[in-house]
């Protein structure tokens, strides 16, 4: 399955973000991108050229960026505050908490080059804490689209709902997870990408694809896996989670995030509190000084790849 879909054309989700925003701006003058010397990293240079009045540049000042975005949103602008996820959700966390979420200013906080996309630039440039930090803040939806389709859908939806949303993307070209038959995309509704009775694998963002690749390896070993793209980390699709978890033998979550406080712990917490107890393992970045390398090397190091995921599944089923 993974081999087939691999042949479909694909881009970085970041690129799709920029294209979608341009498309929306064609008919909507209220679409505003706010940047902090980040329009290049956010692939927004063409947007800025086409709609110079719809991009606000604040300089390298991320706290200011989020505050300004909140003010714009309070006046009816559909704001996309765009900056590397690491700076937005660490330095500007208080602005997200108070000026966006608490004050209910419907800013779309766009965390670019998320997770370990910046690889060898090191921990200052990684965002492995953003799900954890934002899950603990009331009134913000937390989304990590997995492929180009989910990205385009999420951006369009974010532009048109009147609520704070955090979206994070990476820089790596992402294959389509499956061909799309008029599926409807909603925040808070996970997507089942593959179906199998033995194990449930839940990923989000750029880790769904390696989970899907693991399906093939597992199949050869006689293990049938369900794979879910849980693009919305908060609110979590607990109905889907409970349904799938009840019928499988083991559960593995995979995320480009610390193993603390992210998708895995969100799932574990729900299941345990609702009496659904299965062998369970969180795959992610452990609590240690993150190894140096490209995103791919970091993934491989921590077993966030098809081999690593398969091994974890096999161990759980033993």
């Amino acid at each position, binding site marked *: 399955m993974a081999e087939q879909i691999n042949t479909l054309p694909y881009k970085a989700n970041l690129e799709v973000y920029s294209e979608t925003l341009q498309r929306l701006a064609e008919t909507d003058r209220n679409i505003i991108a706010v940047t902090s010397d980040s329009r290049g*990293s956010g692939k927004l240079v063409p947007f800025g050229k086409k709609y110079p009045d719809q991009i606000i*540049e604040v300089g390298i000042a991320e706290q200011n960026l989020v505050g300004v975005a909140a003010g714009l949103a309070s006046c009816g602008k559909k704001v996309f505050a765009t900056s590397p996820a690491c700076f937005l959700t660490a330095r500007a966390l208080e602005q997200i908490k108070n000026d966006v979420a608490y004050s209910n200013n419907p800013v779309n906080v766009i965390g670019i080059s998320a997770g370990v996309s910046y690889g060898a630039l090191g921990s200052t*440039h990684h965002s492995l804490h953003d799900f954890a930090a934002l899950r603990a803040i009331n009134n913000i939806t937390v989304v990590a689209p997995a492929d180009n389709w989910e990205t385009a859908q999420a951006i369009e939806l974010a532009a048109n709902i009147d609520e704070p949303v955090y979206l994070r993307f990476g820089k790596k070209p992402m294959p389509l997870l499956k061909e799309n038959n008029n599926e409807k995309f909603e925040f808070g509704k996970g997507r089942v990408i593959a179906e199998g009775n033995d194990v449930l694998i839940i990923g989000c963002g750029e880790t769904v694809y390696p989970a899907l690749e693991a399906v093939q390896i597992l199949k050869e070993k006689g293990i049938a896996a369900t794979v879910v793209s849980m693009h919305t980390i908060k609110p979590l699709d607990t109905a889907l989670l409970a349904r799938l978890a009840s019928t499988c033998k083991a559960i593995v979550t995979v995320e480009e995030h610390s193993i603390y406080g992210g998708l895995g712990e969100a799932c574990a917490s729900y299941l345990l509190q609702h009496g659904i107890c299965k062998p369970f393992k969180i795959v992610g970045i452990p609590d240690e000084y993150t190894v*140096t390398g490209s995103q791919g090397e970091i993934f491989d190091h921590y077993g966030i790849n098809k081999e690593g995921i398969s091994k974890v599944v096999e161990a759980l089923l033993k």
Partner: protein
Amino acid sequence: MTTKELKQKSVEYRKKILKYIVKAKAGHTGGSLSCTDILNVLYNEVMNVSPENFTSPDRDRYIQSKGHTVEALFVVLADQGFFPEEDLETLCQYKSHYIGHPTRKVKGVEQNTGALGHGLPIAVGTALAGKLDQKNYKVYTLMGDGEMPEGSNWEAALTAAHYKLDNLCVIVDKNTLQITASTADVCNTDPLDEKWKSFGWAVKEVNGNDVDALKEVLQSLPFEEGKPSVLIAHTTKGKGVSYMENVLKWHHGVPTKDEYEQAIKELDESLLTI
């Protein structure tokens, strides 16, 4: 060092910066070349810091707030003997401690930086400790001109003036460019000298690519008794390589093989006119 030796050092550093950026296939080229002369003069002429005294509480401290131009720092630290230069062959590679920003895993690095707007507050704390302990060390921090809009800088600037930290020196690498465009077009911070002055700092300006001028001004610290000092260093981004000078894309551009050879040729030729 003589002026001639210092100038030769700068060329040597620039060649090595390019060498390791090409090897790593990554790096912040333009901003490393703009601050090369500043680091050269600080480490070879001004600061009292060496591999031997690096654990001494009396050493001078250098905190690179514009962490992205780490290649310049690593090359200078290797030359000072903090670690073997060959270590830089592993820059940005899997499991290397030599990553794309300063980290304390590398000997000679004072603080982990890379997110802009962090160096100055840490430098203020370090200078405050020096005052509290009646030490004579000085604290230096290098900042980018694009970095100026981060609010934390100005919060720290107030603290420094309030505590009369004349053991603290900020150097602004005013190369007039950042990633998106010129600093004037992204978020104009001019007149920069007036801003620092109004925050209670003693300000001087210098040609930041002139080793003699840098040496003279940095040996005259503090610029004013009882005030923190800021040196606005007017530099050229991409300094020393004709096709990189003042060209935006070289912020993090990596030279091709041909471009690299051309750059080395130009730098070698410049040695002849020193």
